[in-house]
């Protein structure tokens, strides 16, 4: 394998990582953009999605559509969980200081992590790739699994659909309005509370979807929640909290940073990631494509 091929392989690996990160971070960013809540439990939703997908795959048994059904089922269940939490609890904290919302979502992290341990134990669980995407492809001499290609296509597809909803539909206009000025939107007679619930549900759905889709690539273990939420924070900070395309760019940068950072400074790659996050916050706190908060 030549150097160029090796680097190309690293590049593709970085893109795949980026697409998963985009799926997770986009939900986090959308929720922040509208609700102004930084949801620490977003990583926990991702983890619950992964466990639920594993559970459903194993309950349904082998079959051509089992994996897809499980992934969508997991994402839907996580969305439902998000809606219930928003309606019953989070809603009552909107008027309070940011700190209370942060600590509430942190409490959810603790509760959901232990709930997952109670339900599924601490052993590593894994899911087989769906049969239809089991093969691999040779691309300029680099072997790329079909599943990774699928993820590389799905990421942009989801980004595009979210963009279409936000910029080409009525509900999207309402959501953008809520992000800009919620009081004004409420005064104009819109049901801002319902918008919040929808937004939290959609964000949770994306987290659950990412969790379900990651199961064939990564093992499902306790601790994956905390690991991913820190990474998602880095991505949204780079791109800009609340910005959709910012999240795409943040994920791509972070993915490549991980892929090549390992080669350049293997020992200090985690250090470099947080240093990058700090530098961006210092120079441009609202991120590459975000808007400054008023």
């Amino acid at each position: 394998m030549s150097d160029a091929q090796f680097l190309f392989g690293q590049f593709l690996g970085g893109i795949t990582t980026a697409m998963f990160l985009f799926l997770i971070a986009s939900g986090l960013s959308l929720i922040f953009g509208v609700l102004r809540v930084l949801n620490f439990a977003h990583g926990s939703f991702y983890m619950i999605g992964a466990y639920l997908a594993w559970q459903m795959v194993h309950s349904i048994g082998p079959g051509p559509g089992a994996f897809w059904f499980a992934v969508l089922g997991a994402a839907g269940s996580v969305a439902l969980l998000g809606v219930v939490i928003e309606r019953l609890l989070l809603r009552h904290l909107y008027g309070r200081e940011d700190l209370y919302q942060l600590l509430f979502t942190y409490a959810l992290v603790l509760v959901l992590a232990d709930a997952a341990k109670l339900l599924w134990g601490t052993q590593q669980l894994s899911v087989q790739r769906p049969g239809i995407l089991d093969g691999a492809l040779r691309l300029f001499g680099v072997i790329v699994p079909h599943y990774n290609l699928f993820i590389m296509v799905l990421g942009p597809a989801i980004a595009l659909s979210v963009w279409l909803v936000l910029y080409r539909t009525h509900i999207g206009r309402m959501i953008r309005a809520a992000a800009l000025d919620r009081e004004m939107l409420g005064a104009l007679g819109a049901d801002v509370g319902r918008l919040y619930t929808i937004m939290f549900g959609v964000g949770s759905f994306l987290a659950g979807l990412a969790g379900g889709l990651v199961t064939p690539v990564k093992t499902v273990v306790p601790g994956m929640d905390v690991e991913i939420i820190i990474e998602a924070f880095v991505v949204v900070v780079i791109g800009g909290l609340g910005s959709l395309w910012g999240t795409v760019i943040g994920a791509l940068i972070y993915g490549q940073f991980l892929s090549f950072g390992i080669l350049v400074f293997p020992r200090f790659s985690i250090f470099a990631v947080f240093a990058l996050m700090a530098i961006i916050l210092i120079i441009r706190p609202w991120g590459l494509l975000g808007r400054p908060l008023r």
Partner: protein
Amino acid sequence: MRRHLFDRIPWAAVVFVVAFGIPALGSRFYTSVATDILILGLFATSLNLLLGTTGLVSFGHAAYFAVGAYTCGILMKTYGMPFAFGLVAAALAAGAVAVLFGFFCVRLTKIYFAMLTMAFAQIVWAICFKWNDVTGGESGLINVPYPDLGWMEAIPGLGGMRIGEHYFYLTLVLVAVSLAALRRISQSPFGRMLTTIRENPERAEFIGVHVRRYELAAFVMAGFFAGVAGAMFGIFNRGVFPDAGYWARSAEALIMVILGGMNQFWGPLVGAFMLIALNQQITSYTEYWPLVLGVILIVLLFTFPAGIVGSLASVLSDRRRRPDA
């Protein structure tokens, strides 16, 4: 307003004197738990100088705790320095790091401030985690020596005690001095100005206060005392481990502050007491302590947002107001 008997009792002094009797209970376990509470109580109180007094939500206070713990641990273990030197160096190092980080942090507001404090703390954690030659890396700095506390034998009443009990007394005095200093700071004109900044930063700026400079000063003082707590924590555990700087420890300190009440000076200490005592009780029944903690935290946020001390204080002041009315 008439001063009640309750107010006239110097509660802090009473607790301090009572705490002197803890080793006399004869249980090594109680002494160790009490030492833990004191150290983490100081850590949480130092955080509250930012959170409650100045209104800055730091999600990375563990950074200064870790800098203090590693500085003292490395000086004592690797360079064989005495504890007194290690402690002072730890506090100064933590303060210096707080100057550096705080300089950038106070330029940001709200959620961005929280994120940047967290990013800095994660940088500290990553360095501790990976710099094997100096910090011991993932497995930490083990076998940090106990300070030589033989001189305590000469103090009447403290002779013939175990080293852990001597260390408890050392901790008690150091924490009491630090808390007294923090209380003086928060009640001084400087501290009042910090509260003004919390309540209305624009107005503070308007009357000619250099808000960022005040915030930075508070940040550095909070970091300094977190360093003191960290240094004592490392000795107490006979080792320093990277999770001293991990964000979960920052979150734990925030929980202590909220549990006790962030608008009360003694809130964080009471919060540390509650959290550690609960932890000891619950972990003897179940391994699912985080689940219990999460549920307690949620219940607390919805029912007693002012924390335990805050809620007690408002109950007491209500009761007092009634006869006057």
